[in-house]
């Protein structure tokens, strides 16, 4: 019998996947979501006694539009949480589409940003590049890499930035990454000067980041969209991540079934062969 999964046109499976991803949005299931310890540590690190009004926090948008569904829900929750504690936010990012991400955050955390004042409660510094050198320079002299904010206003003319220029003036860093930029903040801010840092990264950074959380380099960590969903549970405001969890469940189940079927096929092949 020559039938095997490998003989089926793979486009059939792609269509199955594409349709299966959409069904849970039309018919939500609502699986419960357990909160991981690393996510809880992150949330506790940005709320309550961990944050004083007036503390300055950096949020690094280290992700582009393709990773919005993965990183943005977690960033939204953290921005909301910090603003509600009275912290001041410095928003910046190394992607050329960082302005789109900034606008998206103003939309997803609309109520909190509408209640705050630009220049007093938050500032958007915009695009940065230059790798480790840029982040190291940001720690020692912000105005050398950001003489103005994204809207060309000199930092000295922005009220919340008047006393902020080095790592001394920053209480913590939240880096949301798809790649290296969180690592630069880790080496140039957390390791060099002991600035508390947490990662709101893509799921793959969960593999490299969890050992760092265990070692105490990160005070908390949110892993991908699952972490974003957990943060939304913690703040009590369901958002895009929780909505997407059902679809993610279906897709993950499909891939595990695919792996199992492939290995059942392998066992059958070996059985036939022997």
């Amino acid at each position, binding site marked *: 019998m020559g039938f095997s999964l490998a003989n089926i046109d793979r486009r059939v499976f792609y269509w199955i996947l594409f349709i299966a*991803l959409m069904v849970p949005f039309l018919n939500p299931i609502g699986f419960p979501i357990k909160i991981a310890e690393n996510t809880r540590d992150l949330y506790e690190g940005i709320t309550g006694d961990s944050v004083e009004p007036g503390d300055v926090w950096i949020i690094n948008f280290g992700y582009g539009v393709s990773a919005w569904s993965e990183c943005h829900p977690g960033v939204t929750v953290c921005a909301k949480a910090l603003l509600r504690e009275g912290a001041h936010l410095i928003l910046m990012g190394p992607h050329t589409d960082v302005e789109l991400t900034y606008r998206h955050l103003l939309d997803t955390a609309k109520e909190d940003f509408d209640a705050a004042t630009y220049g007093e409660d938050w500032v958007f510094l915009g695009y940065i590049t230059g790798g480790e*050198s840029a982040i190291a320079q940001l720690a020692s002299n912000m105005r050398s890499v950001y003489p103005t904010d994204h809207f060309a206003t000199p930092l000295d003319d922005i009220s919340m930035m008047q006393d902020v220029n080095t790592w001394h003036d920053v209480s913590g860093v939240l880096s949301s990454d798809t790649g290296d930029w969180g690592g630069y903040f880790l080496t140039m801010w957390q390791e060099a000067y002991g600035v508390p840092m947490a990662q709101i990264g893509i799921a793959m950074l969960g593999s490299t980041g969890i050992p760092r959380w265990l070692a105490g380099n990160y005070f908390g960590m949110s892993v991908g969209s699952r972490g974003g969903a957990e943060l939304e549970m913690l703040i009590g405001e369901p958002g895009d991540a929780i909505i997407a969890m059902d679809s993610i469940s279906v897709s993950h189940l499909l891939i595990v079934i695919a792996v199992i079927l492939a290995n059942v096929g392998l066992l059958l092949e070996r059985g036939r062969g022997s």
Partner: protein
Amino acid sequence: MAYPTATMDVIGLWIGWVLMLTIYSYPLYKENPVYRFSEHLYIAVMLAVNLVVNFSNVMRICVTPMMQGDFMMIVPLILGIMIYTMLIPEYRWVSRYPIAILVGAGFGLGIRGSIGPNIQDAIVSTITRPTDGVAMAWINFLYIAVGLICSVLYFLLTYEHSGALQAPTRIGRLFIMVALGAYFGNTVLFRFTMLTGRAQFFLQVLKLIPM
């Protein structure tokens, strides 16, 4: 974000929806001219955005300060332009000077910053015994300690993995495979979350689910 009402915004939304389908025509159907058109369009737009954003950034951090009196900024400006000599074969060597600065800065910063979290903190965390007396905590502690030693031995490439090294390097390889498997599991979440976002967008534009 609510469903847009302005005409140009609605047109833009639908154009984005169509462009998404043109990209998905490649895996769901086959490679076709429509997909290639969208692919080339994306590269064009991405490159242009890159150029414009980087240009404005150079103006902000270099040219404007220079015009305001910081004349030393002419040096990095010239060094940066020297990189473009890479395009001229007989003068390619000139581009080595700015690259030398980038490499030196990256290496100097890398050494001083990486040793702490990647080596020191990792080793300290591995050898720090658990504070609670729970059996599972000790099992995990031993697992991580043995695993780290065997896995590092696996990457010891100066000696052949035979004799006394054979068993620990073999065990180390198994630990590495477990780590790669977990990494694969996380990769699946990442890739499928992105796909999920597109599936959601597909339905939102059709107004089958709220935006």
